[in-house]
Protein backbone atom coordinates (compact mmCIF):
# COMPACT_ATOMS: atom_id res chain seq x y z
CA UNK A 1 0.00 0.00 0.00
CA UNK A 2 1.22 3.44 -0.86
CA UNK A 3 2.22 5.75 1.93
CA UNK A 4 -0.04 8.55 2.99
CA UNK A 5 2.01 11.57 2.10
CA UNK A 6 -0.44 14.37 2.72
CA UNK A 7 -3.86 15.16 4.08
CA UNK A 8 -5.22 15.15 0.54
CA UNK A 9 -3.87 11.62 0.10
CA UNK A 10 -5.69 10.51 3.21
CA UNK A 11 -8.97 12.09 2.12
CA UNK A 12 -8.74 10.44 -1.28
CA UNK A 13 -8.07 7.13 0.36
CA UNK A 14 -10.98 7.55 2.74
CA UNK A 15 -13.39 8.37 -0.07
CA UNK A 16 -12.30 5.34 -2.03
CA UNK A 17 -12.61 3.05 1.00
CA UNK A 18 -16.00 4.43 1.90
CA UNK A 19 -17.39 4.05 -1.58
CA UNK A 20 -16.05 0.50 -1.78
CA UNK A 21 -17.84 -0.37 1.42
CA UNK A 22 -21.09 1.27 0.46
CA UNK A 23 -21.08 -0.35 -2.99
CA UNK A 24 -20.61 -3.69 -1.34
CA UNK A 25 -23.26 -3.25 1.30
CA UNK A 26 -25.91 -0.93 0.09
CA UNK A 27 -26.58 -1.79 -3.49
CA UNK A 28 -29.98 -3.31 -3.98
CA UNK A 29 -28.41 -5.25 -6.76
CA UNK A 30 -28.52 -8.99 -6.15
CA UNK A 31 -24.74 -8.99 -5.96
CA UNK A 32 -24.88 -6.82 -2.84
CA UNK A 33 -23.16 -8.67 -0.10
CA UNK A 34 -24.33 -9.80 3.30
CA UNK A 35 -22.03 -8.54 6.01
CA UNK A 36 -21.63 -10.45 9.26
CA UNK A 37 -19.65 -8.93 12.11
CA UNK A 38 -18.75 -11.08 15.08
CA UNK A 39 -17.76 -9.31 18.31
CA UNK A 40 -14.35 -10.75 19.01
CA UNK A 41 -12.95 -9.04 22.06
CA UNK A 42 -11.71 -11.09 25.00
CA UNK A 43 -15.25 -11.26 26.39
CA UNK A 44 -16.77 -12.56 23.16
CA UNK A 45 -14.02 -15.07 22.52
CA UNK A 46 -14.38 -16.41 26.06
CA UNK A 47 -18.06 -17.03 25.34
CA UNK A 48 -17.34 -18.95 22.14
CA UNK A 49 -17.28 -16.27 19.44
CA UNK A 50 -14.42 -17.97 17.60
CA UNK A 51 -16.51 -21.07 16.92
CA UNK A 52 -19.44 -18.93 15.84
CA UNK A 53 -17.27 -16.90 13.48
CA UNK A 54 -15.84 -20.05 11.94
CA UNK A 55 -19.32 -21.48 11.57
CA UNK A 56 -20.46 -18.39 9.68
CA UNK A 57 -17.37 -18.30 7.48
CA UNK A 58 -17.56 -21.98 6.53
CA UNK A 59 -21.30 -22.32 6.24
CA UNK A 60 -22.12 -19.14 4.36
CA UNK A 61 -19.70 -20.25 1.69
CA UNK A 62 -21.00 -23.82 1.69
CA UNK A 63 -24.57 -22.62 1.34
CA UNK A 64 -23.66 -20.26 -1.48
CA UNK A 65 -24.39 -17.00 0.29
CA UNK A 66 -22.27 -14.12 -0.94
CA UNK A 67 -21.08 -12.68 2.35
CA UNK A 68 -18.19 -11.10 4.17
CA UNK A 69 -17.55 -12.21 7.72
CA UNK A 70 -15.34 -9.93 9.79
CA UNK A 71 -14.44 -9.46 13.41
CA UNK A 72 -15.00 -6.35 15.47
CA UNK A 73 -14.24 -5.32 19.01
CA UNK A 74 -16.64 -5.41 21.93
CA UNK A 75 -20.15 -4.21 21.15
CA UNK A 76 -20.79 -3.70 24.84
CA UNK A 77 -23.43 -6.37 25.37
CA UNK A 78 -21.36 -8.56 27.67
CA UNK A 79 -24.46 -10.17 29.15
CA UNK A 80 -25.47 -11.48 25.73
CA UNK A 81 -22.16 -12.69 24.30
CA UNK A 82 -21.43 -13.92 21.73
CA UNK A 83 -23.01 -11.08 19.78
CA UNK A 84 -23.23 -10.89 16.02
CA UNK A 85 -24.28 -8.07 13.70
CA UNK A 86 -25.88 -8.99 10.42
CA UNK A 87 -26.39 -6.51 7.61
CA UNK A 88 -28.39 -7.54 4.59
CA UNK A 89 -27.74 -5.51 1.42
CA UNK A 90 -29.61 -2.23 1.49
CA UNK A 91 -30.96 -2.76 5.02
CA UNK A 92 -30.17 -1.50 8.50
CA UNK A 93 -27.85 -3.75 10.49
CA UNK A 94 -29.33 -5.97 13.18
CA UNK A 95 -27.52 -7.24 16.30
CA UNK A 96 -28.24 -10.68 17.73
CA UNK A 97 -27.25 -11.79 21.21
CA UNK A 98 -26.52 -15.24 22.66
CA UNK A 99 -25.48 -16.58 19.27
CA UNK A 100 -24.34 -20.19 19.51
CA UNK A 101 -23.95 -22.58 16.59
CA UNK A 102 -27.65 -23.43 16.63
CA UNK A 103 -28.68 -19.80 16.61
CA UNK A 104 -26.12 -19.05 13.88
CA UNK A 105 -27.68 -21.78 11.77
CA UNK A 106 -31.13 -20.28 12.29
CA UNK A 107 -29.85 -16.80 11.38
CA UNK A 108 -28.36 -18.09 8.12
CA UNK A 109 -31.35 -20.16 7.13
CA UNK A 110 -34.13 -17.79 8.15
CA UNK A 111 -32.82 -14.25 8.28
CA UNK A 112 -30.02 -14.20 5.75
CA UNK A 113 -31.55 -16.51 3.17
CA UNK A 114 -35.22 -15.64 3.51
CA UNK A 115 -35.23 -12.29 5.26
CA UNK A 116 -37.53 -13.59 8.00
CA UNK A 117 -36.94 -12.06 11.40
CA UNK A 118 -35.32 -14.26 14.02
CA UNK A 119 -35.73 -13.87 17.81
CA UNK A 120 -32.95 -12.47 19.95
CA UNK A 121 -32.43 -9.03 18.43
CA UNK A 122 -30.77 -6.52 20.76
CA UNK A 123 -32.35 -3.13 20.16
CA UNK A 124 -30.07 -0.19 19.41
CA UNK A 125 -29.74 1.78 22.64
CA UNK A 126 -27.17 4.42 21.78
CA UNK A 127 -26.57 7.33 19.47
CA UNK A 128 -23.57 7.62 17.22
CA UNK A 129 -21.47 10.76 16.96
CA UNK A 130 -22.74 11.42 13.46
CA UNK A 131 -26.36 11.62 14.53
CA UNK A 132 -25.82 13.66 17.67
Amino acid at each position, binding site marked *: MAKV*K*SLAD*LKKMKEKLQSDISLRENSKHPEGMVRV*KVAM*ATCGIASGAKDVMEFFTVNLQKRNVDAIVTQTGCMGY*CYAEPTVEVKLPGQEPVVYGFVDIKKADEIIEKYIKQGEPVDGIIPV*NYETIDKK
Partner: protein
Amino acid sequence: MSENIKQIRVALRNCGFINPESIDEYIAADGYEALGRVLTEKTPEEATKEIIDSGLRGRGGGGFPTGVKWDIARKVESDQKYVVCNADEGDPGAFMDRSILEGDPHSVIEAMAINGYCIGADKGLVYIRAEYPLAIERLKTALDQAREYGLLGEDIFGTGFNFDIEIRYGAGAFVCGEETALINSMEGHRGEPTFKPPFPAQSGYLGKPTNVNNVETFANIPVIFNKGAEWFASIGTEKSTGTKVFALAGKINNVGLIEVPMGTTLREVIFEIGGGIKDGKKFKSVQTGGPSGGCLTEKHLDTPIDFDNLLESGSMMGSGGMIVMDEDDCMVSVARFYLDFTVEESCGKCTPCRVGNKRLYELLDIISKGNGSNNDLDKLRNLGEVIIDTSLCGLGQTSPNPVLSTMDNFWDEYLAHVEDQRCPAGQCKDLIRYEVIEENCVGCTACARNCPVNCISGERKEIHHIDQSLCIKCGACFEKCRFNAISVS
Protein backbone atom coordinates in the same frame (compact mmCIF):
# COMPACT_ATOMS: atom_id res chain seq x y z
CA MET B 1 -31.94 13.21 21.41
CA SER B 2 -34.90 10.92 21.78
CA GLU B 3 -36.32 10.22 25.21
CA ASN B 4 -35.40 6.62 25.73
CA ILE B 5 -31.93 6.56 24.22
CA LYS B 6 -29.48 7.58 26.91
CA GLN B 7 -26.22 6.47 25.42
CA ILE B 8 -23.91 8.28 23.02
CA ARG B 9 -20.85 6.49 21.72
CA VAL B 10 -17.92 8.85 21.49
CA ALA B 11 -14.93 6.99 22.94
CA LEU B 12 -16.53 3.73 21.81
CA ARG B 13 -17.53 5.14 18.40
CA ASN B 14 -15.75 2.40 16.48
CA CYS B 15 -15.80 -0.39 19.05
CA GLY B 16 -17.92 -3.17 17.67
CA PHE B 17 -18.33 -1.43 14.31
CA ILE B 18 -15.00 -1.74 12.57
CA ASN B 19 -12.49 -4.51 12.27
CA PRO B 20 -9.78 -3.58 14.77
CA GLU B 21 -7.16 -5.28 12.64
CA SER B 22 -7.90 -3.20 9.55
CA ILE B 23 -6.50 0.29 9.21
CA ASP B 24 -8.60 0.74 6.07
CA GLU B 25 -11.82 0.46 8.02
CA TYR B 26 -10.50 2.98 10.54
CA ILE B 27 -9.61 5.42 7.77
CA ALA B 28 -13.05 4.94 6.20
CA ALA B 29 -14.49 5.93 9.58
CA ASP B 30 -12.69 9.32 9.52
CA GLY B 31 -9.56 7.81 11.04
CA TYR B 32 -6.29 9.80 11.02
CA GLU B 33 -8.08 12.80 9.59
CA ALA B 34 -7.79 14.62 12.92
CA LEU B 35 -4.06 13.97 12.98
CA GLY B 36 -3.72 15.17 9.38
CA ARG B 37 -5.65 18.35 10.06
CA VAL B 38 -3.82 19.14 13.28
CA LEU B 39 -0.42 18.64 11.65
CA THR B 40 -1.17 20.69 8.56
CA GLU B 41 -3.56 23.35 9.83
CA LYS B 42 -2.81 24.06 13.48
CA THR B 43 0.12 25.09 15.62
CA PRO B 44 0.76 22.99 18.72
CA GLU B 45 -0.55 25.89 20.78
CA GLU B 46 -3.80 26.12 18.83
CA ALA B 47 -4.35 22.38 19.00
CA THR B 48 -3.75 22.34 22.74
CA LYS B 49 -6.17 25.20 23.17
CA GLU B 50 -8.82 23.18 21.37
CA ILE B 51 -8.44 20.42 23.96
CA ILE B 52 -8.62 22.98 26.78
CA ASP B 53 -11.77 24.46 25.24
CA SER B 54 -13.39 21.06 24.94
CA GLY B 55 -13.24 20.73 28.73
CA LEU B 56 -12.04 17.12 28.47
CA ARG B 57 -10.92 15.76 31.84
CA GLY B 58 -8.75 12.72 32.45
CA ARG B 59 -10.79 9.55 32.24
CA GLY B 60 -8.41 7.46 34.31
CA GLY B 61 -9.97 8.61 37.53
CA GLY B 62 -8.50 11.88 38.76
CA GLY B 63 -10.38 14.07 36.34
CA PHE B 64 -7.55 16.58 35.78
CA PRO B 65 -8.22 18.79 32.73
CA THR B 66 -6.39 17.11 29.86
CA GLY B 67 -5.69 20.27 27.89
CA VAL B 68 -4.12 21.97 30.90
CA LYS B 69 -1.90 18.93 31.43
CA TRP B 70 -0.79 19.11 27.79
CA ASP B 71 -0.19 22.81 28.07
CA ILE B 72 2.11 22.38 31.06
CA ALA B 73 4.14 19.74 29.22
CA ARG B 74 4.19 21.90 26.10
CA LYS B 75 5.65 24.89 27.92
CA VAL B 76 8.51 23.00 29.53
CA GLU B 77 11.65 23.28 27.40
CA SER B 78 13.58 20.11 26.78
CA ASP B 79 15.51 18.31 24.03
CA GLN B 80 13.34 15.24 24.46
CA LYS B 81 9.77 14.70 25.65
CA TYR B 82 7.54 11.65 25.90
CA VAL B 83 3.87 10.77 25.51
CA VAL B 84 2.69 7.86 27.62
CA CYS B 85 -0.57 5.98 27.34
CA ASN B 86 -1.65 4.44 30.62
CA ALA B 87 -3.24 1.10 29.78
CA ASP B 88 -2.56 -0.45 33.15
CA GLU B 89 -6.19 -0.99 33.93
CA GLY B 90 -6.31 -2.34 37.45
CA ASP B 91 -9.68 -1.64 39.05
CA PRO B 92 -11.64 -4.80 39.74
CA GLY B 93 -14.64 -4.75 37.45
CA ALA B 94 -13.37 -2.20 34.92
CA PHE B 95 -12.56 -3.27 31.39
CA MET B 96 -13.19 -0.28 29.11
CA ASP B 97 -9.52 0.34 28.32
CA ARG B 98 -9.11 -3.25 27.24
CA SER B 99 -12.21 -3.01 25.08
CA ILE B 100 -11.02 0.17 23.39
CA LEU B 101 -7.59 -1.28 22.65
CA GLU B 102 -9.15 -4.49 21.38
CA GLY B 103 -11.85 -2.76 19.39
CA ASP B 104 -10.29 0.47 18.15
CA PRO B 105 -6.52 0.58 18.69
CA HIS B 106 -5.91 3.14 15.94
CA SER B 107 -7.85 5.84 17.78
CA VAL B 108 -5.34 5.67 20.63
CA ILE B 109 -2.37 5.71 18.25
CA GLU B 110 -3.76 8.71 16.39
CA ALA B 111 -4.42 10.59 19.64
CA MET B 112 -0.93 9.88 20.96
CA ALA B 113 0.57 11.30 17.78
CA ILE B 114 -1.58 14.42 18.15
CA ASN B 115 -0.43 14.68 21.76
CA GLY B 116 3.17 14.32 20.62
CA TYR B 117 2.77 17.18 18.16
CA CYS B 118 1.14 19.39 20.80
CA ILE B 119 3.79 18.99 23.46
CA GLY B 120 6.78 18.51 21.15
CA ALA B 121 7.48 14.82 21.70
CA ASP B 122 8.55 12.41 18.98
CA LYS B 123 8.23 9.30 21.04
CA GLY B 124 5.24 7.56 22.61
CA LEU B 125 5.03 4.63 24.95
CA VAL B 126 2.03 2.48 25.77
CA TYR B 127 2.24 0.95 29.23
CA ILE B 128 -0.06 -2.04 29.05
CA ARG B 129 -0.55 -4.93 31.41
CA ALA B 130 0.77 -8.24 30.17
CA GLU B 131 -2.54 -9.87 31.16
CA TYR B 132 -4.16 -8.33 28.08
CA PRO B 133 -2.66 -10.53 25.34
CA LEU B 134 -5.33 -9.83 22.73
CA ALA B 135 -5.16 -6.07 23.28
CA ILE B 136 -1.37 -6.21 22.93
CA GLU B 137 -1.59 -8.25 19.76
CA ARG B 138 -4.11 -5.90 18.13
CA LEU B 139 -2.15 -2.86 19.20
CA LYS B 140 0.99 -4.30 17.64
CA THR B 141 -0.86 -5.04 14.41
CA ALA B 142 -2.22 -1.51 14.39
CA LEU B 143 1.22 -0.01 15.00
CA ASP B 144 2.69 -1.99 12.10
CA GLN B 145 -0.12 -0.88 9.80
CA ALA B 146 0.25 2.76 10.80
CA ARG B 147 3.99 2.60 10.10
CA GLU B 148 3.38 0.95 6.76
CA TYR B 149 1.00 3.75 5.77
CA GLY B 150 3.45 6.38 6.93
CA LEU B 151 1.10 7.56 9.66
CA LEU B 152 3.79 6.80 12.20
CA GLY B 153 7.47 7.25 11.62
CA GLU B 154 9.21 10.12 9.91
CA ASP B 155 7.77 13.10 8.09
CA ILE B 156 4.13 12.28 8.81
CA PHE B 157 1.74 13.86 6.27
CA GLY B 158 4.76 15.48 4.69
CA THR B 159 5.01 17.98 7.53
CA GLY B 160 8.38 16.99 8.91
CA PHE B 161 6.81 15.77 12.14
CA ASN B 162 8.23 12.48 13.42
CA PHE B 163 6.51 10.20 15.87
CA ASP B 164 6.70 6.55 16.81
CA ILE B 165 5.27 4.39 19.56
CA GLU B 166 6.70 1.54 21.61
CA ILE B 167 4.93 -0.89 23.90
CA ARG B 168 6.00 -1.44 27.51
CA TYR B 169 4.56 -4.27 29.55
CA GLY B 170 3.37 -4.03 33.11
CA ALA B 171 3.13 -7.01 35.40
CA GLY B 172 -0.31 -6.10 36.61
CA ALA B 173 0.43 -4.14 39.77
CA PHE B 174 -2.46 -1.89 40.74
CA VAL B 175 -0.17 0.88 41.99
CA CYS B 176 1.46 1.16 38.54
CA GLY B 177 -1.67 2.92 37.32
CA GLU B 178 -0.41 5.87 39.39
CA GLU B 179 1.64 7.91 36.92
CA THR B 180 4.88 8.23 38.89
CA ALA B 181 4.87 4.52 39.78
CA LEU B 182 4.10 3.75 36.13
CA ILE B 183 7.10 5.77 35.00
CA ASN B 184 9.35 4.03 37.54
CA SER B 185 8.14 0.67 36.28
CA MET B 186 8.80 1.66 32.64
CA GLU B 187 12.33 2.65 33.56
CA GLY B 188 12.88 -0.80 34.98
CA HIS B 189 12.67 0.22 38.64
CA ARG B 190 10.28 -0.98 41.30
CA GLY B 191 6.74 0.18 40.69
CA GLU B 192 6.68 2.69 43.53
CA PRO B 193 5.27 6.20 43.40
CA THR B 194 7.38 9.28 44.11
CA PHE B 195 6.52 12.69 45.52
CA LYS B 196 4.83 15.24 43.28
CA PRO B 197 6.20 17.80 42.47
CA PRO B 198 8.10 17.35 40.31
CA PHE B 199 5.19 16.34 38.12
CA PRO B 200 5.81 14.02 35.17
CA ALA B 201 5.21 17.03 32.92
CA GLN B 202 8.39 18.52 34.38
CA SER B 203 10.45 15.42 35.00
CA GLY B 204 9.00 12.08 33.98
CA TYR B 205 10.28 9.16 31.96
CA LEU B 206 14.11 9.15 32.10
CA GLY B 207 13.91 12.55 33.75
CA LYS B 208 12.34 14.14 30.66
CA PRO B 209 8.99 15.95 30.47
CA THR B 210 6.30 13.32 30.03
CA ASN B 211 2.57 13.53 29.47
CA VAL B 212 0.60 10.55 30.78
CA ASN B 213 -3.02 10.00 29.75
CA ASN B 214 -5.41 7.12 30.05
CA VAL B 215 -6.66 5.04 27.08
CA GLU B 216 -10.20 6.38 27.23
CA THR B 217 -8.95 9.98 27.39
CA PHE B 218 -6.93 9.39 24.22
CA ALA B 219 -9.88 7.73 22.49
CA ASN B 220 -11.83 11.00 22.85
CA ILE B 221 -9.13 13.19 21.27
CA PRO B 222 -9.66 12.55 17.53
CA VAL B 223 -13.40 13.23 17.89
CA ILE B 224 -12.73 16.60 19.47
CA PHE B 225 -10.79 17.68 16.38
CA ASN B 226 -13.21 16.11 13.92
CA LYS B 227 -16.36 17.52 15.50
CA GLY B 228 -14.96 20.58 17.25
CA ALA B 229 -14.37 21.51 20.87
CA GLU B 230 -17.72 23.24 21.05
CA TRP B 231 -19.57 20.13 19.98
CA PHE B 232 -17.75 18.07 22.60
CA ALA B 233 -18.43 20.62 25.33
CA SER B 234 -22.13 20.62 24.46
CA ILE B 235 -22.37 17.02 25.70
CA GLY B 236 -22.39 16.39 29.43
CA THR B 237 -22.40 18.95 32.21
CA GLU B 238 -20.72 22.30 32.49
CA LYS B 239 -17.75 21.11 34.52
CA SER B 240 -17.59 17.56 33.22
CA THR B 241 -17.97 17.60 29.48
CA GLY B 242 -18.36 14.71 27.11
CA THR B 243 -19.29 11.17 27.91
CA LYS B 244 -18.01 8.47 30.22
CA VAL B 245 -17.72 4.78 29.58
CA PHE B 246 -18.87 2.59 32.46
CA ALA B 247 -18.38 -1.11 32.95
CA LEU B 248 -21.53 -2.45 34.55
CA ALA B 249 -20.99 -5.53 36.65
CA GLY B 250 -22.42 -7.32 39.66
CA LYS B 251 -26.08 -8.06 40.32
CA ILE B 252 -27.42 -6.29 37.28
CA ASN B 253 -29.29 -7.73 34.32
CA ASN B 254 -27.41 -6.14 31.43
CA VAL B 255 -23.79 -6.57 32.39
CA GLY B 256 -21.69 -4.73 29.85
CA LEU B 257 -19.98 -1.66 28.58
CA ILE B 258 -22.00 1.52 28.24
CA GLU B 259 -21.24 5.12 27.36
CA VAL B 260 -23.43 7.92 28.66
CA PRO B 261 -23.14 11.71 28.71
CA MET B 262 -21.81 13.11 31.97
CA GLY B 263 -24.72 14.15 34.13
CA THR B 264 -26.76 11.00 33.53
CA THR B 265 -28.15 9.75 36.85
CA LEU B 266 -27.27 6.45 38.48
CA ARG B 267 -30.93 5.49 38.27
CA GLU B 268 -30.92 5.86 34.48
CA VAL B 269 -27.72 3.86 34.22
CA ILE B 270 -28.74 1.03 36.52
CA PHE B 271 -32.45 0.69 35.89
CA GLU B 272 -32.90 1.86 32.31
CA ILE B 273 -29.70 0.93 30.52
CA GLY B 274 -28.65 -1.77 32.95
CA GLY B 275 -32.09 -3.35 32.98
CA GLY B 276 -32.43 -3.35 36.77
CA ILE B 277 -31.36 -5.79 39.45
CA LYS B 278 -31.02 -9.51 38.78
CA ASP B 279 -33.81 -11.87 39.84
CA GLY B 280 -36.10 -8.99 40.80
CA LYS B 281 -34.17 -8.33 44.01
CA LYS B 282 -33.94 -5.00 45.72
CA PHE B 283 -31.18 -2.50 44.87
CA LYS B 284 -28.91 -1.87 47.80
CA SER B 285 -25.78 -0.11 46.68
CA VAL B 286 -23.50 0.64 43.76
CA GLN B 287 -19.76 0.74 44.11
CA THR B 288 -18.06 3.18 41.78
CA GLY B 289 -14.40 3.96 41.31
CA GLY B 290 -13.01 0.57 42.29
CA PRO B 291 -10.90 0.22 45.45
CA SER B 292 -10.53 4.02 45.57
CA GLY B 293 -14.22 4.72 45.37
CA GLY B 294 -17.12 4.30 47.65
CA CYS B 295 -20.53 2.69 47.89
CA LEU B 296 -23.48 4.84 46.96
CA THR B 297 -27.02 4.07 47.99
CA GLU B 298 -30.58 4.62 47.05
CA LYS B 299 -30.45 8.28 48.08
CA HIS B 300 -27.74 8.93 45.48
CA LEU B 301 -29.67 7.35 42.60
CA ASP B 302 -30.86 10.67 41.25
CA THR B 303 -27.54 12.46 41.51
CA PRO B 304 -26.19 13.33 38.06
CA ILE B 305 -22.92 11.48 37.58
CA ASP B 306 -19.92 13.72 37.07
CA PHE B 307 -16.49 14.04 38.61
CA ASP B 308 -17.47 16.55 41.29
CA ASN B 309 -20.81 15.07 42.32
CA LEU B 310 -19.30 11.65 42.86
CA LEU B 311 -16.52 13.10 45.00
CA GLU B 312 -19.05 15.02 47.02
CA SER B 313 -21.05 11.84 47.62
CA GLY B 314 -17.98 10.18 49.13
CA SER B 315 -17.05 8.12 46.10
CA MET B 316 -15.21 8.97 42.92
CA MET B 317 -15.35 8.51 39.17
CA GLY B 318 -12.31 6.28 39.06
CA SER B 319 -11.88 4.53 35.78
CA GLY B 320 -15.58 3.80 35.53
CA GLY B 321 -16.22 0.41 37.05
CA MET B 322 -19.70 0.10 38.52
CA ILE B 323 -20.45 -2.87 40.69
CA VAL B 324 -24.09 -3.18 41.60
CA MET B 325 -25.10 -4.87 44.85
CA ASP B 326 -28.47 -6.18 45.97
CA GLU B 327 -30.08 -6.89 49.34
CA ASP B 328 -28.06 -10.10 49.80
CA ASP B 329 -24.73 -8.29 49.96
CA CYS B 330 -23.19 -7.47 53.32
CA MET B 331 -21.54 -4.07 53.26
CA VAL B 332 -18.97 -4.97 55.92
CA SER B 333 -17.86 -7.88 53.74
CA VAL B 334 -17.74 -5.62 50.70
CA ALA B 335 -15.51 -3.14 52.53
CA ARG B 336 -13.33 -6.02 53.71
CA PHE B 337 -13.04 -7.35 50.14
CA TYR B 338 -11.73 -4.02 48.83
CA LEU B 339 -9.37 -3.62 51.75
CA ASP B 340 -8.03 -7.10 51.11
CA PHE B 341 -7.28 -5.96 47.56
CA THR B 342 -5.56 -2.74 48.70
CA VAL B 343 -3.47 -4.53 51.31
CA GLU B 344 -2.33 -6.93 48.61
CA GLU B 345 -1.58 -4.15 46.13
CA SER B 346 0.04 -1.58 48.43
CA CYS B 347 3.61 -1.13 47.27
CA GLY B 348 4.83 -0.77 50.85
CA LYS B 349 6.78 2.41 50.38
CA CYS B 350 4.94 4.59 52.89
CA THR B 351 3.89 3.47 56.36
CA PRO B 352 0.29 4.72 56.50
CA CYS B 353 -0.63 2.66 53.48
CA ARG B 354 1.51 -0.40 54.23
CA VAL B 355 0.65 -0.76 57.92
CA GLY B 356 -2.52 1.32 58.19
CA ASN B 357 -4.47 -0.62 55.59
CA LYS B 358 -3.43 -3.91 57.15
CA ARG B 359 -4.73 -2.73 60.54
CA LEU B 360 -7.89 -1.46 58.87
CA TYR B 361 -8.41 -4.88 57.34
CA GLU B 362 -7.86 -6.59 60.68
CA LEU B 363 -10.46 -4.40 62.35
CA LEU B 364 -12.98 -5.23 59.63
CA ASP B 365 -12.17 -8.89 60.01
CA ILE B 366 -12.83 -8.76 63.77
CA ILE B 367 -16.13 -6.99 63.16
CA SER B 368 -17.28 -9.45 60.54
CA LYS B 369 -16.57 -12.30 62.93
CA GLY B 370 -18.80 -10.72 65.56
CA ASN B 371 -15.97 -9.86 67.93
CA GLY B 372 -15.93 -6.11 67.39
CA SER B 373 -16.84 -3.38 69.85
CA ASN B 374 -18.09 0.18 69.47
CA ASN B 375 -14.56 1.23 70.22
CA ASP B 376 -13.40 -0.65 67.10
CA LEU B 377 -15.86 1.33 65.00
CA ASP B 378 -14.33 4.58 66.26
CA LYS B 379 -10.86 3.28 65.58
CA LEU B 380 -11.90 2.25 62.07
CA ARG B 381 -13.00 5.75 61.24
CA ASN B 382 -10.03 7.52 62.82
CA LEU B 383 -7.51 5.23 61.23
CA GLY B 384 -9.20 5.60 57.86
CA GLU B 385 -8.98 9.37 58.05
CA VAL B 386 -5.32 9.29 59.08
CA ILE B 387 -4.44 7.02 56.15
CA ILE B 388 -6.16 9.41 53.73
CA ASP B 389 -4.31 12.40 55.16
CA THR B 390 -0.85 10.92 55.36
CA SER B 391 -0.34 8.49 52.47
CA LEU B 392 2.11 9.29 49.70
CA CYS B 393 0.10 8.49 46.60
CA GLY B 394 -3.42 8.14 45.32
CA LEU B 395 -3.65 4.51 46.32
CA GLY B 396 -3.32 5.15 50.05
CA GLN B 397 -5.12 8.48 49.88
CA THR B 398 -8.24 6.72 48.65
CA SER B 399 -8.00 3.18 49.98
CA PRO B 400 -10.16 3.82 53.10
CA ASN B 401 -12.98 5.18 50.91
CA PRO B 402 -14.87 1.88 50.67
CA VAL B 403 -14.78 1.61 54.47
CA LEU B 404 -15.71 5.20 55.24
CA SER B 405 -18.48 5.38 52.66
CA THR B 406 -20.08 2.13 53.84
CA MET B 407 -19.85 3.42 57.42
CA ASP B 408 -21.58 6.62 56.38
CA ASN B 409 -24.29 4.95 54.37
CA PHE B 410 -24.78 1.64 56.16
CA TRP B 411 -24.06 2.49 59.78
CA ASP B 412 -26.90 0.19 60.93
CA GLU B 413 -25.21 -2.77 59.40
CA TYR B 414 -21.95 -2.08 61.21
CA LEU B 415 -23.90 -1.69 64.47
CA ALA B 416 -25.72 -4.98 63.91
CA HIS B 417 -22.40 -6.76 63.51
CA VAL B 418 -20.95 -5.17 66.63
CA GLU B 419 -23.86 -4.90 69.05
CA ASP B 420 -26.03 -7.88 68.10
CA GLN B 421 -23.34 -10.06 66.51
CA ARG B 422 -25.71 -10.32 63.58
CA CYS B 423 -25.16 -10.01 59.81
CA PRO B 424 -28.39 -8.61 58.34
CA ALA B 425 -27.56 -9.88 54.84
CA GLY B 426 -26.64 -13.34 56.09
CA GLN B 427 -23.22 -13.23 54.43
CA CYS B 428 -20.74 -13.24 57.31
CA LYS B 429 -20.23 -16.92 57.94
CA ASP B 430 -19.21 -16.55 61.55
CA LEU B 431 -22.44 -14.83 62.42
CA ILE B 432 -24.95 -17.19 60.91
CA ARG B 433 -26.40 -20.48 62.13
CA TYR B 434 -28.16 -23.16 60.13
CA GLU B 435 -30.82 -25.01 62.14
CA VAL B 436 -33.46 -27.62 61.45
CA ILE B 437 -37.03 -26.40 61.78
CA GLU B 438 -38.48 -29.46 63.51
CA GLU B 439 -42.09 -28.95 62.40
CA ASN B 440 -41.11 -29.03 58.73
CA CYS B 441 -38.52 -31.81 58.74
CA VAL B 442 -39.82 -35.05 57.21
CA GLY B 443 -36.60 -37.00 57.60
CA CYS B 444 -35.83 -37.31 53.89
CA THR B 445 -32.06 -37.35 54.64
CA ALA B 446 -31.29 -35.02 51.71
CA CYS B 447 -29.43 -32.59 53.97
CA ALA B 448 -27.42 -35.29 55.71
CA ARG B 449 -26.39 -36.85 52.40
CA ASN B 450 -25.21 -33.51 51.02
CA CYS B 451 -23.42 -32.22 54.10
CA PRO B 452 -19.69 -32.17 53.20
CA VAL B 453 -18.60 -32.52 56.83
CA ASN B 454 -21.23 -35.06 57.94
CA CYS B 455 -22.44 -32.93 60.80
CA ILE B 456 -26.15 -33.69 60.28
CA SER B 457 -27.51 -36.74 62.09
CA GLY B 458 -30.93 -38.39 62.19
CA GLU B 459 -32.64 -41.59 61.10
CA ARG B 460 -34.78 -41.86 57.98
CA LYS B 461 -38.25 -40.37 58.51
CA GLU B 462 -37.15 -38.81 61.78
CA ILE B 463 -36.23 -35.26 62.66
CA HIS B 464 -32.62 -34.39 61.81
CA HIS B 465 -30.16 -32.39 63.85
CA ILE B 466 -27.18 -30.15 62.93
CA ASP B 467 -24.09 -30.33 65.12
CA GLN B 468 -23.12 -26.64 65.41
CA SER B 469 -19.59 -27.39 66.57
CA LEU B 470 -18.80 -29.12 63.26
CA CYS B 471 -20.90 -27.02 60.85
CA ILE B 472 -18.83 -25.04 58.33
CA LYS B 473 -21.83 -22.94 57.21
CA CYS B 474 -21.57 -23.90 53.58
CA GLY B 475 -25.31 -23.70 53.12
CA ALA B 476 -25.58 -27.03 51.24
CA CYS B 477 -28.36 -28.29 53.55
CA PHE B 478 -30.34 -25.09 53.05
CA GLU B 479 -30.15 -25.41 49.29
CA LYS B 480 -30.97 -29.11 49.17
CA CYS B 481 -33.94 -29.08 51.56
CA ARG B 482 -37.21 -29.16 49.65
CA PHE B 483 -39.41 -28.79 52.71
CA ASN B 484 -38.23 -25.41 54.04
CA ALA B 485 -36.96 -27.20 57.09
CA ILE B 486 -33.62 -25.42 57.38
CA SER B 487 -33.46 -21.91 58.79
CA VAL B 488 -30.66 -19.37 58.55
CA SER B 489 -30.27 -16.93 61.40
